[in-house]
């Protein structure tokens, strides 16, 4: 990519030489005309077979009960909640990129937002599975929602779990709306380019008859902007609420005021890591290197680095407060049990993956090397899973009364369920890249338009570009 250097010496957000037409065709042809390739087939195969595993695990679970998992007393939450928090965390990057970066007028978001939003949706779908499945009587889930029951009972609003129900379902709904609204013009494009009548009808009905009228565009833009404005605090709130599940309890290692900010940072951290994990192969396979450029990878790497540092700060603070508070239970847990106790390996790996390895990203060369970046992102994903493992398991297994301490071990069914959701995620993702434009076409055209203006105003362009790209 070094050959197309932008005037300001940084890689461009869009490789030069693209017109409205080329942008449109490149992206929409992936959906409409491009033949199946083996990589997609393999990915889809893996995804759907893991999905079958998921089916098996869930049926077993419903048939026998959560006892098939490793959960016990005192560790009554296990992998299920860990996976839930992990997936929700991953689900943060999408809306963040689309919403916050949109409000900040960051051009480079354009080519990755659609894709990141899709990832968000699918991650939240996976996350949503776990709170349901981990219940003792999942078929009673609706008792957690307000409805006029003959028992004259509504949910217990003080419980963080109820907040969770609302937060996650709201987040899922809003992200879906946001994603769909963004899709409407592109669906219209697909409708208009489809050769096959039926394909055209399918996309057409999804496009709701969008015809790009100027008045529509203006309402559309304000609605889209407002959605972004609403989604921004929502993103922050969701993981805050998730963190309150822990912070609102009395358990040492959970009962910490630092949790909300530190969870949100962690969420963005893992979210961007997952975006990188998925982008790098995608841009290679589907020839999108012109749209998802080194510049994007570079910026995402910077965000990963920054949020990683915040997470590291969180860990440090946990130590400090434990010592500073003089609370014997906190002291024991954080200064003894976690670093040196039964689960010290998980803890140390976590530190390595989340704080140690990301430091490599200080080096620009590494940030701009897709392969290295991809490997680092994998480490971050693992590290963030371990973080949740450490939080959930260590705190519960050694809380207040030594008499009731016990260790926790997952079972094969824990693993199967987790792999199952990964399958679900992969399946949906591969489906998505085949049937919907993975990059927002209309926004790319807009980008092309803006670029023309930049070139027109030559001298000003440099300064302007600086302003825009910072």
């Amino acid at each position, binding site marked *: 990519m070094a050959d197309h250097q932008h005037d300001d010496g940084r890689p461009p957000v869009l490789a030069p030489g693209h017109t409205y037409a080329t942008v449109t065709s490149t992206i929409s042809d992936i959906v409409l005309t491009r033949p199946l390739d083996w990589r997609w087939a393999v990915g889809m195969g893996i995804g759907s077979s893991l999905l079958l595993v998921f089916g098996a695990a869930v049926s077993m679970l419903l*048939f*026998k*009960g*959560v*006892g*098939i998992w*490793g*959960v*016990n*007393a*005192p560790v*009554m*939450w296990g992998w299920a909640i860990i996976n839930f928090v992990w997936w929700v965390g991953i689900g943060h990057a999408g809306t963040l990129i689309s919403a916050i970066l949109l409000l900040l007028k960051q051009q480079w978001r354009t080519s990755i937002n659609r894709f990141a939003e899709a990832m968000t949706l699918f991650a939240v779908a996976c996350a949503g599975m776990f*709170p349901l499945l*981990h*219940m*003792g*009587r999942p*078929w*009673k*889930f609706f*008792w*957690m929602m307000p409805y006029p029951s003959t*028992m004259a*009972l509504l*949910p*217990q609003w*003080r*419980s*963080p*779990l*109820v907040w969770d*129900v609302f937060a996650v379902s709201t987040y899922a709904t809003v992200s879906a709306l946001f994603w769909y609204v963004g899709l409407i013009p592109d669906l219209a494009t697909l409708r208009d380019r489809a050769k096959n009548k039926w394909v055209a009808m399918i996309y057409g009905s999804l496009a709701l008859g969008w015809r790009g009228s100027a008045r529509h565009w203006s309402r559309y833009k304000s609605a889209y902007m407002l959605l972004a404005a609403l989604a921004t605090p929502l993103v922050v709130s969701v993981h805050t609420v998730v963190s309150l*599940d822990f912070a*609102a*309890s*009395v*358990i040492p290692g959970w009962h910490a005021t630092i949790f909300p900010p530190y969870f949100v940072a962690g969420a963005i951290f893992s979210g961007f890591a997952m975006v990188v994990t998925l982008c790098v192969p995608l841009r290679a396979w589907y020839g999108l290197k012109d749209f998802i450029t080194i510049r994007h990878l570079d910026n995402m790497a910077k965000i990963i680095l920054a949020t990683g540092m915040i997470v590291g700060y969180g860990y440090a603070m946990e130590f400090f407060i434990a010592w500073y508070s003089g609370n*014997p239970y906190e002291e*024991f847990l954080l200064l003894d049990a976690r670093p040196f106790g039964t689960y010290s390996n998980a803890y140390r790996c976590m530190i390595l993956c989340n704080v140690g390895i990301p430091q490599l990203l200080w080096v620009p060369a590494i940030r701009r090397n897709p392969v290295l970046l991809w490997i680092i992102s994998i480490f971050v994903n693992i590290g963030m899973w371990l973080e949740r493992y450490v939080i959930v398991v260590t705190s*519960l297994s050694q*809380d*207040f*009364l*030594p*008499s*009731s*301490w*016990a*260790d926790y*071990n997952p079972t094969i069914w824990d693993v199967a369920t987790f792999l199952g959701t990964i399958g679900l995620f992969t399946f949906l993702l591969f489906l998505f890249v085949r049937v919907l434009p993975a990059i927002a076409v209309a926004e790319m055209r807009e980008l092309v338009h803006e670029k023309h203006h930049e070139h027109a105003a030559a001298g000003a362009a440099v300064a302007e570009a600086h302003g825009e790209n910072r």
Partner: protein
Amino acid sequence: MMKSQNADLDKPLTLTELMRGAAAPEAESTGPRYWRSLSELADDGSFGEMASRAAARAQAAIHGLDEPSRRKFMTLMGASFALAGVAGCGVQPVEKIVPYVEQPELIVPGKPLFFATASSRGGDGVGLLVESHMGRPIKIEGNPSHPTGKGATDVFSQAEILSLYDPDRSQVAVHDGGVDTWERFLRFAVDLRARKLGEKGRGLRILTRSVCSPTVLDQIRRLREQMPEARWHSYEPVNRDAARKGAELALGSPMEASYHLEKADVVVALDADLLGWGPAGLRHARAFADRRDPEAESPLKLYAFEPTPSLTGAAADVRVPVAAADVLLVAAALAKALKVEGAPDLDAKRIEPHAARIAALAAELESKKGKALVAVGDSQPAEVHALGLALNAALGAIGEAVTLAPADELAPADQTASLVELVREIEAGAVDTVLVLGANPVYEAPADLKVAEALRNEKVTALIHLGLYNDETGALAHWHLPEAHFLESWGDVRSADGTVSLQQPLIEPLYQGRTASDVLAALLGQVGVPGRELVREYWKTRLPEENFEASWRQALRDGVVPLPAAEPAPAPPAPKLDKVQWPAPAAPADGEYELVFRPDPTIWDGRYANNGWLQELPKPLTTLTWDNAALVSPALARKLGIEDQQVVTLEFRSSTIKAPVLIAPGQAEGTVTVHLGYGRSRAGRVGNGIGFDAYKLRRADAPWSGPGLKLIPTEGRIPLAITQHHHDTKNREPVKVSTFEAARHHGEGEAHGHHHPDFSLYPDAPYKQSEDYAWGMAIDLNRCIGCGACTIACQAENNIPIVGKDQVLNSREMHWIRVDRYYEGEGAASADNPTTHFQPVPCMHCEKAPCELVCPVEATTHSDEGLNEMTYNRCVGTRYCGNNCPYKVRRFNFLQYTDNETPGLQLLRNPDVTVRMRGVMEKCTYCVQRINEARQNAKVEGRKVGGDEVVTACQAACPTRAIVFGNLLDKESSVSKLQASHRNYALLEELGTKPRTTYLTKLTHGAEAHEEPRHG
């Protein structure tokens, strides 16, 4: 029953016919009638079906038990959407109401009745009250008017109710491997009687366990009169032979000593588990606790010398681990110091380290003469008992703190000898008929006697076995007869102190069981005389006949037979030691250790092996469940480099077994302890094949301990399901300990009893609290001895399921009240002989309960009377409450633990407590069903519930009255008084949860066993 089949006795009946036959309730002139169940009353076929299922199981029981279902049996049955119990959604299925045809007097649907009866074990008895719902006995309480328990019960009596309904109990008579009938046995018995009368009973032998039923003793006596050459042998694996022999040595006659702790200030337990051994333990425990009361002017001081940790050792102020063989040396040393005449001069090298302590003790005894006693355990040889009697005489305890009662002259004084004699005679071919009544010699006799081979002797033409289970002996018997559970039968029990109680049936025999006296009656020619008549007949001869009916009814009501005052027994002779030969103290060869046998704390000698409650009850001190293990001292483990759960080969006198190791702090260094009762092959689906059979190592001449054990570590491992993995308190002081000294004059800047300020920003309660009731509980740690009776009483009362070993291994046990055990003391020394503290932990019913806050569906809320309520049918099972409970008292049904399949077990359920389904959280409710019952009675009578009126299940069972429950608003209630005590403190008080359950500081004598007295 008889009449129904007299028609054609030759045609064998089918099992279902048998069942129906038995279903016809026996005509009773007085008192209520008894049924198996409502469904039987309304014979809508369900009972027939249940019966045939039972029959099918019986068949299985005869031709070996079905492997796969074993052990899993009680646990993971359901695992289906069968939304039983707490479920409830969709249109309700149509239900039937089935009224009586003739309403029996007394029985009001939904109102429990209580009947007095008694259980017996090891020749001693406990008086019981049994709660019966609609003819179903569902809960056992102690009988307050019975001196042994004074209303308390031990774990065994509590668990008997489960044994009653145990579907694996023997259900059919078996003759030569085929199903047969009681009627045909009767015909056999009649022939036998005719034959034996002719032969004067030659070749007839009767084998029982220790018999404490006056009626049965009388029947045996009459049989001996009719058949002079018949012999009666009795053998109980956990017997008092040594004590009787010791008495014989010292006093010339086999007397049985009983100890009265209430009369002593200093008690020395020489390998005597006063608090945990047999029904007498209940009496001792109560006396001990009362004498430890801080208000008592001179709190009792307890010394224990024992080879293996016991409840008594844990309660002792000074506990000294010594090898079982060295207890004699300790006794001798004390005797010498107290100038007991005839005291042996033994080489005291092995107890050198404790010399100073023993000297000090001797001095203290000297000073406390008349207020001190020495207790010798049944597991010590006769010589020590003789020495013990001499010591007690020297201390002036005989007749005071120690009383001696003559043993029954008819019963064999030395049971082991009597069993040996039986075996020898059989081998000599002098025996053709053996009547085994309620015993299981094949399993529980010492291995060297080879009882199984003996009984297979072809000269023995009739081996008749009457037993609750078709067990190891039943498998060999020509005739096996199902025995009636004592809750199904008439009988009487004489407890060690002479009190006699009547047993009355709470329910018709579920499986056509018969009692020993039924069988003996048949041999005495009283064919078909109902059990009730047999007992009445006997007591007619014992009680003044002018008001016999009155006293009979009184006996049935009170559970104690009003006996005419017995003439005072003559004072026993002064003990002499001249006849005693003192064993030469054998120096243990190195590489060899001492083997010690103990009855299992929860399944005793194996008779309770098929009782799931007892199997899952954590054994005191080790908290082991579902297994036995070889207990070794930490020092020995270090020396041999073995660790918990590692399998070792135990080689003792040429027999070997493999056993998993469990390291027991406080174990004497060179001593290995094994518990009896496991390794059963025909106990039932619950008890089969778990643990190892320690009887295989037992010898007739070394019943309790012996040197020369070899211990060879192997690579194998057997996971042991222990419920408590961490033993030190991590300086968190859940148990607060102080000294009597400090307690007597507290207030002088005493730290303990001080309270954290209430730092809640919120008002106490969101709305008006009840002005009448505020329920609360106080647990006096100074009284708790850690026996676990509370746990099992709670299990019985609250329909708590058992989960099985694999679930306990994943720490999913369901007990609502657990007994935590902490070891105290620094360094390796503490591991070798730590101070032990017990702490029962039920739900704290916090007023600021963390669990309530996090429940998303109001499944757990706070009542205006301060109860932390758990509404099972609202619970969706997020388990957040369980996580957020600092005391970890919440229990979750991870799987379908409650067995809804087995019909017998459905009869067991307490109808006042919801049966929980899978996926639902549960926890201690302060026995809210009892609170509500009291409330309802009060309302119906238009009054208020009394401050102490409600008694929780754990409180009722507690032998030491350590648990007190009541109304905190009533300042006169005992719980208010206790919580007002300066010893009162709340667990994890600093969390601001404001628990309603509080604890009272444990007090010690601050002897050298402890370092500085510590305060809250």
